[in-house]
C-alpha cells in the first residue's frame, strides 16, 4: 500500500497551512488597530522619516489608513510587502511573466487610485488579490480560448477504473511541468481556487473571500479543479499523454 494513502492527508497539509498562516501573519498582523486614521489630514500623521512610525514598522491596516490620507510612502511599503506574492499568484494564473508583471502593476495602480474607497471589511491583500485576479481574467478574456481541461460534474466517476496501478514514471521535475501545464489548462473559474488554496496554501475561508464565493461554491470548484488536474497527472504517470 502506498504511503500516499497511508500518509495522513491532514498531517500532510500542515507545512502548507503553516506557510499560509505565516504569510497571513506577515501580511496582516492580527494586532488590533492602534490608531484610527479615518478622516484625518495627512499633515497630522506620523512623519514619513520617523523611526518608530516608519512605514516598515506599521501593520497593513495602519499603512492603508496612511495611504488613504495621501501618504505614498505608506502605499509603497504595501507594495514591497505584497508585490512578490501577488506576482507569484498571477504568474501561475497567466503563465506569462511579462503579462503577470503588467497585471501586478495595474492591480497596485488601481488599488492606489481607489485606496480612499477601500472600506476595510476585508484585509488589504484580500482586496488586492481580487483586483489582480479580476485584471488577469479580463486580459485572458481577450485571448482566444485554449483547449481547457474538463471539469464536468461526474468526472470523478469516469476516472476511477484503475485496477492496474503502474509505477509512477515521472520524476519530480517532469511532474512539476505536468502540474504547471494542467493548472494553466483549467478554465479560469477553476484555476484561481486551485492556485490560491493548493499552490499558495491560503485557507479555504480566505481564498473563497478573494474569489467572492461562498464556501460551498468555492469547495465545489476546488474539488472539480483538483480532479481535473489529477486526471492530467494520472495520464502522465501512466504514459497516456505521450
Amino acid at each position, binding site marked *: *500500500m*502506498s504511503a*500516499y*494513502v*497511508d*500518509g495522513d*492527508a*491532514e498531517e*500532510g*497539509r500542515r*507545512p*502548507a497551512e503553516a*506557510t499560509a498562516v505565516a504569510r497571513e501573519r506577515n501580511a496582516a498582523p492580527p494586532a488590533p488597530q492602534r490608531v484610527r486614521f479615518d478622516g484625518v489630514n495627512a499633515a497630522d500623521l506620523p512623519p514619513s522619516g520617523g523611526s518608530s512610525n516608519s512605514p516598515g514598522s506599521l501593520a497593513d491596516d495602519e499603512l492603508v489608513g496612511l495611504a488613504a490620507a*495621501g501618504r*505614498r510612502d505608506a502605499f*509603497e511599503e504595501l*507594495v*514591497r510587502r505584497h*508585490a*512578490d506574492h501577488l*506576482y*507569484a499568484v498571477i*504568474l*501561475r494564473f497567466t503563465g506569462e511573466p511579462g503579462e503577470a*508583471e503588467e497585471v*501586478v*502593476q495595474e492591480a*497596485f*495602480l488601481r488599488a*492606489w*487610485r481607489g485606496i480612499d474607497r477601500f472600506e476595510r471589511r476585508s484585509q488589504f491583500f484580500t482586496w488586492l488579490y481580487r483586483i489582480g485576479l479580476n485584471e488577469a481574467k479580463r486580459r485572458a478574456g481577450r485571448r482566444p480560448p485554449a483547449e481547457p481541461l474538463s471539469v464536468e460534474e461526474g468526472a*470523478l*466517476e469516469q*476516472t*476511477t*477504473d*484503475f*485496477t492496474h*496501478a503502474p509505477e*509512477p514514471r515521472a520524476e*519530480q521535475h517532469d*511532474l*512539476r511541468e505536468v*502540474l*504547471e501545464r494542467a493548472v494553466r489548462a483549467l478554465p479560469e473559474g477553476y484555476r484561481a481556487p*486551485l492556485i490560491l488554496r*493548493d*499552490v*499558495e*496554501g491560503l485557507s*479555504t475561508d480566505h481564498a473563497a473571500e478573494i474569489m467572492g464565493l461562498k464556501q460551498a461554491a468555492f*469547495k465545489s470548484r*476546488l*474539488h472539480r479543479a*483538483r*480532479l481535473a*488536474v*489529477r486526471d492530467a*497527472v*494520472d495520464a502522465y504517470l501512466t504514459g497516456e499523454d505521450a
Partner: protein
Amino acid sequence: MRPGFMLDHMFTRRHLAEYLDGELDARGRDRLRDHAHRCPSCHRLVATLVQMLDGLRGLGQAPPRTGSPISDSVIARLRDEPG
C-alpha cells in the same frame, strides 16, 4: 465482495474532498483509509490526489522570478501617477 463495500466506496467518493483538506473526523478518516486499502480504484485515486497536492504545494515554494524585485517596477509606475 465484503459486506458494506459499496457503502464504503460511496462514502469515500463523497467525502474525498474533506479528507484531503483534513476536515474529516477520525472515524471518517479511518473508514476512508480502510476502504482505500481494499479498493484498488479508490487507492489509486486517493494516492494520486495526495501526490498531486504535494506537487502543487511545491510549485508555491519555487522562486518564480529572478532579477530586480517586482516591487521596483510597481513603485516606479506609481511614482508616475499624480498624487
